[in-house]
């Protein structure tokens, strides 16, 4: 009964390094004012819940306890959590959901990661805790891209807000989330949250959470200034240092869902696309690039050579059978020879064949942001060996973006995240903007509306194969991420399956702050014991093996727990996947 007092006594604060120097400020964590980047979203998502959410294994219920979808895939019915309350103690109801979707429609584009116009037809409130969302067309990724992405706003606050991007009152951060905002300082790049002890979906493991800027993250972690720091790709050097010299810290590895790729100009118009619009030419380049060397030297083995079909190997969408281009300069040379690029100048650079669109040396600019100039340097060396001259031209993103949009380039090195979600492969917003293939487009459209997971996966597999074969881009590597933390402060850090929200690969998932009801033995972890203990407790079952795997995916995981919860609450959940 004096839980609160106990919590106060042992006030537990978790501090996290918020980002690189000069970059730990991600905006006021209200839904329309955070800076539209992953860390901004994740800081907002601590305050605002979505209908669904993801844990280490996939989609789980959040504000919606359960849901059904109509056979045509257009009508979704959500059964909402009856215990959820706003931070100001108002009740959360289906009206809030309807309001949110309509508000987003009224303010199209201002919540940058959600396009209401194209998808949503109508929202109806059935009763206080049931809401129906009608779509224009079936949407395979609905649970992730909309239900798991759009923060639900309290109607009683936002109904009067006309320009959400300027709305930064204290009220603007009132959500249903497990944490409440105490303070935010843009200049100091720091956020202070406190526990929402009344959270409807689990017990809080911490009393206070702080995200702050540090000068040097590893140093700050070692001195205890922060309790968690994350690293990326070549920063594995630091991870290694912790591994070797500081066993007191725990390290969790995660996929970044990020890929670095060479983008080719595939424009069929020779005046723009020649010679990179020749498939064999692109293949020769692919054979000519030593991706293993790039991974080992530039990334210090902090990643792996990429799937040529884009999707990340740790994602459920991964197609392991995509074409692979062995590093083999001889093959590359043979291809180029056969294409007629036979003559070489004194430096060994090939000449364009006579009568071709271009003449003279086969030389181009390789545009890239300064960050990837080292990869570009290695590619330069590799391609020189097969007689292709490269000038590396590093700059900031703006000019490159301009070039991509205008099709004014030969090759660009650029990367992007989100490769756990097939939607990223939409052309032309995906970097391969010059690539035109009607077959690809039709497969893409088909998978967008395919509600059957297996069929959709097949389609996505096909997409990947097309990309791997046609090489509008040649993928280089996927970096890994690491979260290094002090387990004595908080030991629940994990990487979200396919990333939080629409695929943000960060470790800052609000679930780390929660002991869900599933953690029956309160060891801070969801385990077999929890499930069985709970099941036995409630269902008074004896047979351990029977019910534990509630969703029968041969694994004990969070979904099982919530599944059971739902059974207990008397509402049968819909199977996911």
């Amino acid at each position: 009964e004096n839980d609160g007092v106990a919590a106060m006594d042992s006030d537990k604060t978790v501090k996290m390094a918020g980002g690189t120097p000069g970059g730990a400020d991600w905006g006021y964590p209200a839904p329309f004012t955070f800076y539209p980047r992953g860390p901004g979203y994740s800081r907002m998502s601590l305050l605002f819940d979505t209908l669904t959410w993801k844990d280490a294994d996939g989609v789980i219920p959040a504000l919606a306890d359960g849901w059904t979808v109509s056979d045509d895939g257009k009508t979704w019915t959500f059964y909402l959590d009856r215990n959820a309350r706003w931070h100001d103690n108002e009740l959360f109801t289906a009206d809030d959901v309807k309001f949110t979707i309509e508000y987003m429609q009224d303010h199209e584009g201002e919540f940058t990661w959600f396009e209401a116009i194209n998808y949503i037809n109508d929202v109806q409130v059935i009763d206080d805790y049931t809401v129906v969302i009608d779509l224009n067309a079936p949407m395979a990724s609905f649970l992730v891209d909309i239900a798991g992405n759009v923060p639900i706003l309290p109607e009683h606050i936002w109904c009067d807000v006309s320009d959400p991007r300027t709305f930064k009152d204290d009220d603007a951060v009132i959500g249903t989330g497990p944490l409440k905002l105490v303070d935010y300082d843009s200049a100091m790049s720091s956020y202070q949250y406190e526990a929402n002890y009344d959270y409807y979906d689990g017990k809080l493991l911490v009393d206070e959470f702080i995200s702050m800027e540090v000068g040097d993250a590893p140093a700050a972690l070692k001195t205890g200034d922060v309790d968690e720091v994350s690293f990326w790709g070549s920063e594995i050097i630091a991870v290694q240092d912790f591994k070797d010299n500081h066993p007191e810290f725990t390290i969790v590895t995660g996929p970044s869902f990020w890929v670095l790729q060479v983008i080719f100009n595939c424009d069929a118009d020779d005046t723009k696309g020649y010679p990179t619009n020749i498939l064999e030419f692109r293949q020769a380049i692919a054979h000519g690039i030593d991706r293993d060397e790039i991974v080992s030297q530039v990334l210090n083995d902090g990643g792996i050579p990429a799937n040529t079909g884009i999707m990340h190997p740790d994602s459920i969408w991964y197609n392991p059978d995509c074409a692979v281009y062995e590093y083999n300069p001889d093959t590359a040379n043979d291809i180029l020879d056969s294409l007629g690029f036979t003559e070489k100048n004194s430096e060994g650079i090939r000449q364009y064949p006579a009568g071709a669109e271009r003449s003279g040396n086969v030389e181009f600019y390789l545009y890239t942001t300064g960050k990837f100039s080292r990869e570009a340097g290695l590619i330069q060396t590799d391609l020189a060996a097969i007689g292709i001259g490269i000038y590396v031209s590093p700059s900031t993103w703006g000019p490159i973006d301009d070039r991509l949009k205008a099709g004014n380039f030969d090759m660009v090195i650029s990367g992007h995240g989100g490769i756990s979600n097939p939607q990223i492969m939409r052309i032309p917003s995906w970097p391969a903007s010059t690539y035109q293939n009607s077959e690809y487009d039709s497969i893409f459209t088909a998978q967008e509306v395919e509600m059957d997971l297996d069929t959709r996966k097949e389609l996505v597999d096909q997409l990947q194969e097309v990309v791997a074969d046609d090489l509008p881009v040649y993928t280089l590597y996927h970096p890994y991420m690491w979260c290094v933390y002090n387990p004595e402060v908080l030991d629940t850090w994990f990487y979200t399956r396919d990333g939080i929200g629409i695929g943000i690969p960060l470790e800052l998932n609000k679930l780390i702050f929660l002991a869900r009801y599933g953690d029956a033995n309160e060891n801070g972890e969801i385990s077999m014991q929890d499930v069985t203990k709970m099941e036995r407790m409630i269902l008074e079952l004896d047979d351990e093996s029977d019910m534990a795997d509630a969703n029968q995916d041969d694994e004990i995981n969070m979904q099982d727990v919530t599944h059971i919860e739902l059974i207990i609450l008397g509402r049968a959940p819909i199977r996911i996947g």
Partner: protein
Amino acid sequence: MHQISKLAYYFVIVLIILSINFSLPRAMPGDALSYLTDPGADIPVRMTEEKREILLAYYGLDKPLSEQYITYMVGIIRGDLGWSIYYSAPVLEVILGRLKWTLILVGTSTAIYITLGILLGATSAWARGRKRDMGLLISIISISSFPSFFLGILLAIIFGIKLDIFPISGAQTAFATYSSPLEEIFDILHHLVLPAATLVLSHIGGTYFLMRNSMLGVLGEDYIMTARAKGLSERYILHKHALTNALLPIVTMTAMTVGFMIMGTIFVETVFAYPGIGNLLYNAVSYNDYPLLQGIFLFLTIAIVGANFIADMIYIRLDPRVNHE
């Protein structure tokens, strides 16, 4: 009349710079929204053309340049610097948020380095050619040879990491609870020591050399000899006669370097993660945030022109000759 033409001159300068401020970011490749698709360490925003247009219209960036220019100028006159796209906040608010810390950092270190530079420069000139002068001269030349970021990192490693006596990041302990305002001030000062020391050390050379030279020039003047001939003490001569005259060029130089000083903190801010204007500019550049860029430039221009104006005023006070041409 002299003042009027001076004001007119400043006005023209400000106008030119404002126009440069306006046109420069727009002349640069990429637009204000390209940061949304920047391949960072997370997922890019999927940007369809419609969405792009909606956003451009939202920020008024779809209008013809001439109209944007007028809006910009009218805005400035009304004190409205626009809306920062990246920070999603009024530019003025964003700048003011950082200004406090920049002023604390720049203010304290400027005050220190100028005072110290003047004192050491005067000491050096007074002891010209003697051991003390040579010692000072060589140490200050050496310190001035360090790029400020290098100096900062060395200080951070030595005093922040190895000795662990000063914090190496931020301007204040994040969300610390203070028992008294004094404790808060102490905390702020504690965070200020290393960045301010870096700035002082890397800027002191300019003042020192100018003061030394200027002082040497003044000490060679006949009126110093006159003062000696009156039987005044060396100390009195140094203070009453030499210093005022030697300070004249310092005033001008300090004004001229104000802009440099404010921006020079960018290195120190980067090293010590200190929240200041320099860093803000860097972000504004990275995110192509036109309104913010413009705002920062405007602020800097005003600071520079203002400093020059103040310097002119001080100069008039210090040097009675300027009034008469």
